[in-house]
């Protein structure tokens, strides 16, 4: 059996809920054991005398990162599928600003959303109120969303991964990240020592927690050594990993309605348009040549096995950001209609405004294309062009001839 388990990837219900509950149990247990149920220990990260947050977070990231490389390298896990289903798109600016705000909320409340749950479970009233605040905050965000929607959806880079961006294999990036993390751990320990002894930070709080030098701890040595060895092993099981080759599959690039329209009309053989809105909506209005696709039975398309000759274009009622696994399995290029079907409606099914007087040749050409497409699709003739203005010249005076 190849992992992940497909039924769990596709549906979150039934067995998926049980798995989520069990994984959540492990998550909560480990966080509590790490000391993350206690705001003073978490906040200490930002006062330098106890860097547990950094150490736990980065050893967890490194562990899972290497684990995926190894499991993918030996063929246990379909790593491409995990990347597609597990990662969100990168929205550069919203993520930067959201991160800064979350950091602010972290130092103000003493928790992050996940640790506030653990704190609540261990009886900390401050943790319960923080979680309540998170609930309220996410609803407030919904209320103010119309005001910031254009920012929140800006700089959409699609799913983007560091190995692809650098053009380096994932195993190499993992090894480098591991080495950097281990050096950063040693650095963090040095900072802790200086903060506690020289700057006298932490005081009573620091004394309560870990002893300053954890260097003699066998757990520390074992954990760090395991990570280093595993990172090298990751490189060994994935000798060559041509990262950029698969990138077009994982990140559905956007295509604007206008560009799509030109391709539909001019080079229809180069694309295949899949309409995910369902047959009913498709019957009412559709992109010419598109196929209605039942999202419940995508496997029937067999895209996994289709020769990647044409570009797939997926259309839904809004921009498709994460491709369903069966579509993502297509080996060729997959494009996603920006703005979904409404964008197509705006482009092709509404009467275009005529170009202004100073329009360039290209703009006028585009208008002619849009008007023709619109007329064809809606069955409406565009308003007849105004009759040519007759050039009124001086009438020739009738001079003879004819019967009078």
């Amino acid at each position, binding site marked *: 059996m190849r992992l992940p388990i497909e039924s769990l990837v596709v549906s979150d219900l039934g067995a998926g809920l049980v798995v989520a509950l069990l*994984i959540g149990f492990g998550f909560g247990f480990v966080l*509590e054991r790490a000391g993350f149920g206690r705001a003073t220990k978490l906040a200490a990260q930002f006062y330098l005398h106890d860097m547990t947050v950094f150490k736990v977070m980065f050893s967890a990231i490194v562990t899972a990162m290497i684990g995926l490389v190894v499991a993918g390298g030996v063929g246990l896990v379909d790593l491409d599928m995990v990347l597609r289903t597990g990662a969100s798109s990168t929205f550069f600016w919203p993520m930067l600003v959201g991160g800064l705000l979350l950091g602010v909320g972290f130092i103000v409340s*003493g928790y992050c959303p996940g640790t506030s749950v653990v704190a609540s479970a261990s009886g900390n009233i401050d943790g319960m109120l923080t979680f309540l605040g998170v609930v309220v905050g996410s609803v407030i965000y919904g209320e103010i969303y119309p005001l910031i929607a254009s920012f929140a959806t800006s700089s959409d880079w699609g799913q983007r991964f560091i190995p692809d961006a650098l053009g380096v294999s994932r195993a190499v990036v993992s090894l480098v990240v591991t080495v950097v993390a281990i050096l950063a751990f040693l650095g963090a320990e040095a900072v802790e020592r200086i903060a506690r002894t020289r700057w006298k930070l932490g005081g009573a709080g620091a004394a309560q927690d870990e002893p300053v030098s954890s260097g003699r701890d066998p757990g520390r040595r074992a954990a760090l050594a395991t990570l280093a060895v595993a990172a090298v092993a990751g490189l060994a099981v994935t000798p060559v990993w041509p990262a950029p080759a698969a990138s077009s599959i994982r990140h559905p690039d956007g295509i604007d309605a206008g560009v799509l329209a030109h391709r539909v009309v001019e080079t229809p053989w180069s694309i295949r348009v899949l309409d995910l809105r369902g047959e009913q909506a498709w019957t009412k209005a559709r992109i010419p040549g598109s196929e209605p696709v039942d999202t419940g039975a995508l496997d029937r398309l067999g895209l996994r096995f289709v020769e990647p000759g044409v570009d797939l274009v997926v259309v839904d009622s809004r921009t498709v950001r994460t491709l369903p696994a069966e579509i993502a399995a297509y080996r060729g290029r997959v494009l996603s209609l920006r703005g979904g079907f409404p964008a197509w409606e705006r482009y092709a099914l509404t009467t275009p405004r005529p170009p202004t007087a100073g329009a360039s040749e290209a703009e006028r050409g585009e208008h002619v294309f849009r008007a023709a497409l619109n007329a064809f699709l809606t069955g409406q003739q565009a308003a007849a062009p105004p009759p040519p203005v007759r050039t009124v010249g001086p009438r020739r005076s009738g001079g003879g001839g004819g019967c009078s």
Partner: protein
Amino acid sequence: MERTDRFWNPYVAGVALGLVLLTSFVLAGKGLGASGAAFHLGVAALEEVAPEHVASNEHLSRSEGSHLENRLIFMVLGVVLGGLVSAFSAGRLGLRVVRGPRIGVAPRLGMAIAGGVIMGMAARMALGCTSGQALSGGALLSVGSWVFMMAVFGGGYGLAWFVRRQWT
């Protein structure tokens, strides 16, 4: 040192957390999450009071399926259970307010809820919190997740000096 202050070695805890995360990826193809459940709970509560308002809001009406019977809610239920079992077995279970040496109970609770509200909004904007974005996306080497993670530390260190009376 009291027994209740004994925590796991941070690196051991980190590797254990990474294995939980890895298991989640390997079985279900998705990582961990916490703030998503808070959103679903909030929308479910608001739906009880003002269903039409929710339906007319572009952001709140966005998610499909049940707000309560979904993966994220069950995961957070699991976190509660796991935290409870761990705290109980370590002798750390009990009602209390965790606070720094120089701050009273009421201001501390005010800060707790205020920080929570900020994080709730931040996590929606960034499509995830420290669990879903930094940890899970970070392990997948997602560009946005690493940007987010750096920004979280940046925001925390940037404000730490101003709220030092709460913690030190």
